[in-house]
């Protein structure tokens, strides 16, 4: 079974890209789908109605959605394999731009929207830097100049990334993505799969529910507006 992990900011077109992948491969190669989201998601119902594929979702609620993804991925792989899937697509919630849900033995795709502003790739860091492929959507809506600059900025974050530009609704230009998926080896050893990068996880007083503002009210890793000297405050 091939594993594809799709990340990207909200409304970038992750599901449009997912839909094109399924349309291209299914039912020749059976696809399964998992959506990880925070409060509401509809993609699983839409895709299973449209293509008749096994699809499900999980809500992260109070937990970071990428954290949830890490927690459930092993179970999800077992589920998809039991469903007989040959391609398993996991779509992240696309919230924290610092996060990066890609794992080893998979294809990591970041979906970026060309209309999100030319500097947006520079703000994302690991979500782009640790992906294998950047699919840039909505390129039909922006000028040639902005398209070229968006590409340059993406390359600045990840010089070796494979960039594919598309109008994902029409699927133009996605033949290169399909070729990459064709060439993707399947999972060799499920137990050896690990996250590609170290996520910015940590248990802090905000995570556990203290809502007061100001570092004076918190313990552990803190940050002051001026002076980077003191970073940790004990109990």
């Amino acid at each position, binding site marked *: 079974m091939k594993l594809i992990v799709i990340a990207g900011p909200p409304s970038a077109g992750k599901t449009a890209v997912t839909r094109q992948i399924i349309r291209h491969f299914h039912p020749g190669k059976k696809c399964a789908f998992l959506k990880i989201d925070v409060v509401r998601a509809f993609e699983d119902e839409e895709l299973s109605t449209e293509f008749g594929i096994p699809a499900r979702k999980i809500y992260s609620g109070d937990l970071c959605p990428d954290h949830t993804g890490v927690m459930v991925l092993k179970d999800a792989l077992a589920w998809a394999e039991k469903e007989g899937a040959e391609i398993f697509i996991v779509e992240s919630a696309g919230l924290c731009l610092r996060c990066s849900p890609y794992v080893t033995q998979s294809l990591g795709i970041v979906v970026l929207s060309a*209309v999100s*502003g*030319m500097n947006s790739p520079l703000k994302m860091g690991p979500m782009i830097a640790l992906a294998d492929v950047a699919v840039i959507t909505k*390129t*039909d*809506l*922006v*000028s*040639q*100049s*902005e*398209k*070229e*600059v968006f*590409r*340059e900025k993406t390359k600045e974050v990840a010089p070796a990334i494979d*960039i*594919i*530009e598309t109008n994902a609704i*029409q699927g*133009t*230009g996605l*033949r*290169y993505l399909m070729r990459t998926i064709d060439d993707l080896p399947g999972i060799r050893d499920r137990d050896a799969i690990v996250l590609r990068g170290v996520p910015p996880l940590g248990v802090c007083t905000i995570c556990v529910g203290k809502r007061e503002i100001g570092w004076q009210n918190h313990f552990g890793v803190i940050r002051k507006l001026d002076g980077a000297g003191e970073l940790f405050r004990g109990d």
Partner: protein
Amino acid sequence: MSPGAISEITILPGHDRNGNPEPFDRIVIRPGDTISIVGPTGSGKTAFINDIEVFAQGDTATGRRVLVNGEVPPEEFIRDPSKKPIALITQNTKCLADMPVEAFLAMHVRARKLDSAEIVSETIELANQFTGEKLHAGCRITALSGGQTRSLMVADAILISNAPLILLDEVENAGIFREKVIEVLKEHNKSVIFVTHDPLVSLLSDRRLVMRNGGVGKILRPGGREEHVREMVARLDLTLCRFRERIRAGELLTGPGFTV
């Protein structure tokens, strides 16, 4: 193969929505050619230029193939917009960046690694030949009218992108001087394909592809036989343009002198 070295782009036939093969051997586009694509809504006009834009290799819904200098083009032509020999400008194409015209063009010049000090002002000058509402170096991109934006994008495609083939999808609605655009494109030895409902643009093109049911139905080469009508339509168009300008200027169009 560099984009400058393109002598022809060839389109090999595909099929219409019912799977009937298109009735042509090949369509060859050479520098300076103007082609218009006409036909009712939904007949496949935009799909035709999309095939060219992605250099289809039998992998789109129409099954067409597009060759450059008789060969399958290198992948970077398709994938790297700065190497792509084609500029596509549609009604949906927008400049979203909120910055002055001059900075916007300079940004594109930098991305292209061109070192010409004058190219930005030349591009603005050229854009102003296409539009009645002059734009200045300091105008903000987001404040430009539809016509000014299209004019700027066409000028950018000619001078900065230096694309040998320009695809214009229904740009006539944007209020640009279409005759001037065609004249300048020919001067710069660019080929252009118009998707159009506009009689003047259609009549100014050397070839007309008539679309039907998702495929090319007919290829017309007027070869001067429409000259008379073309002149008449150009006159009508000019008259309408003048009326438009006077209405915009706040005049009441009465009295002598307002006969066609």
